[in-house]
């Protein structure tokens, strides 16, 4: 009897998960830093793994872009997705444009068509999140309608507020993974109230009722599905969306439509 109930609940969730066409902003290749139990995902296994977790495609990142150098990560991630027939695109790692950095970084070389977004690591790469240092990259991204991604562990909220105000046409996606975003919701939600160009990736937006709160207060357009795979399991964020107390249309926006629109303009 109970097993029948479980089967029914499982099938219902499978149907919802498949129907929402999840498109993932946060798929990672390379050796996960500081997660000793996480296993590196092989590029050739991406398609099979995506299918098993109800994800139709997304943006690929490479750990080397944080741990070694942006150039090393950018080269590696581009090689990994070229020739892959899946619906996969690339996030490159960026640096301030002022100094003439060599190699494949945004603004320094021609940007391949697969690259649809840029992520920065201000703390790891030792530059402040301020206009006089990073403004040139923000202008470059704004001109190309390309979104900027940033982990919440790599920023400070007052600086991000000033950057978002200074570049109102630049979509800035705050990523929630790695550490608990719930301890930062007081500044985060105030920032989202004041800066409409700030969006939120949801891989760790698992606090009670947060999906509904953001949807009702700021709009479903502000949420971006991401998994932080293979450190995190996509089923966590998928579960938060499919069971959310919001409309089917709002779920579809969060699951993938927002991200597809965001990168299609790049």
């Amino acid at each position, binding site marked *: 009897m109970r097993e029948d109930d479980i089967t029914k609940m499982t099938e219902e969730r499978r149907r919802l998960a498949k129907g929402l066409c999840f498109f993932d902003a946060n798929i990672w290749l390379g050796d996960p830093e500081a997660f000793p139990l996480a296993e590196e995902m092989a590029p050739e296994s991406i398609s099979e793994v995506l299918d098993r977790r109800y994800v139709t495609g997304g943006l690929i990142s490479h750990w080397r872009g944080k741990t070694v150098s942006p150039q090393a990560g950018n080269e590696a991630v581009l090689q990994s997705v070229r020739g892959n027939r899946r619906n996969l695109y690339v996030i490159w790692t960026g640096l301030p444009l002022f100094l003439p950095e060599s190699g494949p970084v945004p603004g320094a070389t021609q940007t391949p068509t697969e690259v649809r977004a840029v992520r920065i690591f201000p703390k790891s790469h030792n530059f402040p999140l301020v206009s006089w240092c990073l403004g040139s990259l923000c202008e470059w991204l704004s001109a190309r309608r390309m979104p900027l991604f940033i982990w919440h562990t790599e920023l400070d909220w007052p600086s991000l507020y000033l950057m978002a105000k200074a570049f109102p046409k630049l979509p800035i996606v705050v990523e929630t993974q790695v550490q608990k975003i719930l301890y930062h919701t007081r500044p985060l939600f105030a920032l989202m109230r004041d800066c409409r160009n700030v969006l939120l990736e949801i891989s760790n937006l698992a606090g*009670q009722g947060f999906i509904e709160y953001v949807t009702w207060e700021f709009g479903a357009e502000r949420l971006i599905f991401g998994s932080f*795979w293979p450190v995190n399991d996509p089923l966590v964020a998928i579960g938060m969306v499919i069971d959310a*107390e919001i409309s089917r249309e709002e779920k579809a926006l969060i699951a993938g439509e927002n991200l597809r629109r965001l990168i299609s303009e790049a």
Partner: protein
Amino acid sequence: MGDGFIIDAHLHVGRPGAFFAPATEPDDLLRIMDKLGISHAICMDHRSIVEGCGAGLDAHRELFDRSNGRIYYLGVFHPRRAAACLAALERAKDWSGFAGLKIHPSCHGVPGDDPSYESAWTFAARHNLPILTHSWSVSQYNPTQYLSTPDRFENYVRSFGQARLVLGHAGGRGTGRLQAIRLAREYPNVYLDFAGDIFCYRLIENLVQSVPVEKILFGSDFPWFDPRANLSRVLLAEATPSTKIKILRDNAIRVYQLEVFQC
């Protein structure tokens, strides 16, 4: 109560000061439980987690009655307030809905292998009660977690074989999980719940492969985390329905001896 049958074996009520939470109170919890098919829960209030049990147990007893027996509760043992906590536990041990003890070495600043926990283990063993402990991995950004690594509980587990220990959060996201798995494999009285943000890829599948399925309990850590985060990953995991029902219900009934639920 509706058609719910799932048991959330690790959650809280009360307002946490450290973060904004839209819903934290018992009525919020019951509404969410109804929506998700969660019939019962094992609860500890936030104030008792910080200060140790006392008046919080009376509030829990009232909540158990008011919820028609749906929200069971644990008494928090604070090793720096041992005498007061033991007195409160002694008073509550026969109350309806009282389901065991909770310890939190990281919150209380006392390592899990400290001698000051011995009276709690003795109490649990004498009264055939389980102990739920916070457990985690050594963390670069949360230093007090080293007080709660699973290995620290091993001597007590060995010495008090008649007391059941649930390693809350299954040792966390790092190497503490390997310790938790080892203990669950070696000791019949050790169990794991994966409440919280142990969002590791294929965690459910890996735990099922690593320890007897009877050792694994579903929990949410509400209101820190939404029960939906862990519920769908169990339902959508690559596991059989019989495995899922054990994780989502049967194991909690057995570990916490929720007699009203015997089917």
